[in-house]
């Protein structure tokens, strides 16, 4: 079997083309909410080698997140979070972070969320034309938002309206991040693609909970929370497969990816790129390790171009 050397590997993937193109040097992205704004780990390891970084979901105005109390819990091979979208707001993002991002090699995608459909468009308009912002990811999938988030992503018409409001408001590449907490994810995927989404991220956290048997009450102060980590990988994989059957835009697989083999499985199911979330808590370098794992797999299996893997399990 041929054994391509590291620099002979073709790792680049395209998430959007045409007037708003988004080309990544490799398919590994840091997921929203598990890498903050990128600057924290920039000092710790070479984040410039990543395919892209997605920012913490940011809203028009700063948000304090969930009320005081317990926000996270650990579950078998997973975790629950109810952060409630605590974030710095778009003004601070534009002032303090975008200038730094504009000097980076790694593209930064800003994740946005609005409490009303039009607020997504308003966020997008503020981010249009700003140096350092390579694209947008629409969070219509967080189970922790009081308004907006998952409730918009559970209804095809609303999901499409949010997407359309952003596509109208800017020329940036638009990724829509879907929620797994729906009956028919393919229907939502088709609706947002018809409304102009360039790519889809599949998926956000599964709504879940845990209970303290001794104290006889839920562990998380707000009762429900989002489940992530290796525990959700099989569900995420199934949904990537279903969405890949329904639409032809690039899909970003997300959910429980910890190593290169996990990532390859998502590519084989039909994803063009992947996002690494919870694994970063266990290992801050996780996205980089995932990339190196994909490269090792390609070398071992004689795969020269990562795009050969996309959907290869579907034949």
């Amino acid at each position, binding site marked *: 079997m041929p054994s391509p050397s590291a620099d002979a590997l073709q790792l680049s993937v395209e998430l959007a083309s045409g007037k708003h193109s988004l080309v990544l040097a490799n398919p590994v992205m840091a997921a929203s909410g598990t890498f*903050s704004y990128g600057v*924290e780990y920039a000092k*710790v390891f070479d984040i410039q080698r990543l395919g892209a970084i997605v920012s913490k979901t940011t809203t028009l105005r700063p948000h304090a997140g969930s009320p*005081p109390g317990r926000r*996270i819990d650990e579950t078998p091979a997973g975790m629950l979070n109810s952060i409630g979208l605590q974030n710095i707001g778009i003004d601070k993002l534009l002032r303090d972070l975008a200038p730094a991002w504009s000097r980076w090699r790694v593209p930064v995608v800003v994740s946005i969320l609005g409490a009303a459909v039009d607020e997504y468009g308003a966020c997008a308009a503020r981010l249009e034309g700003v140096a350092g912002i390579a694209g947008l990811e629409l969070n219509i999938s967080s189970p922790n938002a009081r308004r907006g988030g998952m409730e918009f992503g559970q209804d095809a018409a609303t999901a499409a309206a949010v997407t359309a409001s952003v596509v109208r408001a800017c020329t940036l590449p638009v990724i829509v991040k879907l929620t797994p907490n729906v009956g028919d994810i393919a229907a939502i995927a088709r609706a947002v693609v018809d409304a102009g989404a360039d790519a889809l991220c599949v998926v956000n956290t599964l709504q879940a909970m845990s209970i303290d048997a001794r104290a006889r009450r839920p562990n998380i102060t707000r009762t429900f929370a989002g489940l992530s980590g290796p525990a959700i990988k099989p569900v995420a994989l199934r949904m990537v497969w279903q969405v890949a059957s329904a639409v032809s835009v690039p899909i970003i697989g997300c959910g429980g990816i910890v190593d*290169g083999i996990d990532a390859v499985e998502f590519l084989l199911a039909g994803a063009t790129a992947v996002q690494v979330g919870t694994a970063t808590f266990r290992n801050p370098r*996780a996205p980089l*390790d*995932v990339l190196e*794992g994909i490269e090792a797999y390609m070398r071992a299996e004689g795969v020269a171009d990562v795009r050969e893997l996309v959907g290869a399990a579907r034949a």
Partner: protein
Amino acid sequence: MNIGYATVVESERLYGETWITWFRAPELARGAYPGQFLMLRCSDDASYGCGSRAGARADDPLLPRPMSYHRLRDGAGGAEWCLLYDVVGRGTAWLAGRRPGDRVYAWGPLGRGYEVGHASHNLLLVAGGIGVAPLVWLADDAVSRGLNVTMVIGGRSAAQIFPSALLPKEVEVVVTTDDGSSGRAGFVTEPFGELLEWCDQAFACGPNAMFAAMAAVARKARVRRSVQVLLEERMGCGTGICYGCAVEVRLRGGRTMKLVCKDGPRFDVRDVW
């Protein structure tokens, strides 16, 4: 902050259910000071990311565990640091099972630790249970700089009390136990109240109920002293990324959310209670 593998040098049960484990990984303690902490991955797995899955991969327990630096020393291969911990669950049981030569993936130093004011000469240290862990290093450090240290060490019973013989001899020690099996019967708040006037600054670590009681004592006292406490909260990342460890504190009249891992774990007791 640095990331890497720390090698276990020695590990033993020191007293009661409390373990001490020494590590070699000088870069993980570089620039650290008392009150700071590390995150440790507490499960067996080969390094992640490799193309093959020849090594074991443990996704459980998934999250890393926060632990304070307990002490530093010079070892044969450079600086060594250690943890002092109670075995309370899967992560700490795994840690206690490590043997010399085993490696643990960790990152640190993290957070903001204790701040000793330049004008402070008399330091009052108040430890509740395993809260003694970070205070021992503070005591070591203060004594080496010629400061006066009084340490109040409290626990449920004698088995939970850190042995005074292991502290620098210059440290004045007051022991309290709930059941009176060692030292004075009662809580640390009593000697804390008596010694508050003597000290220039107080430093505490222990359960939240102890901090609340200390805040009440400090508020009633005739003198105003700064009381720094180390808070604990469930942590995801330990590095200010996940916003999982937020606590509400009072600052300049208003209430704001702060991150225990990044803005703390050291807070002024009056800002929280």
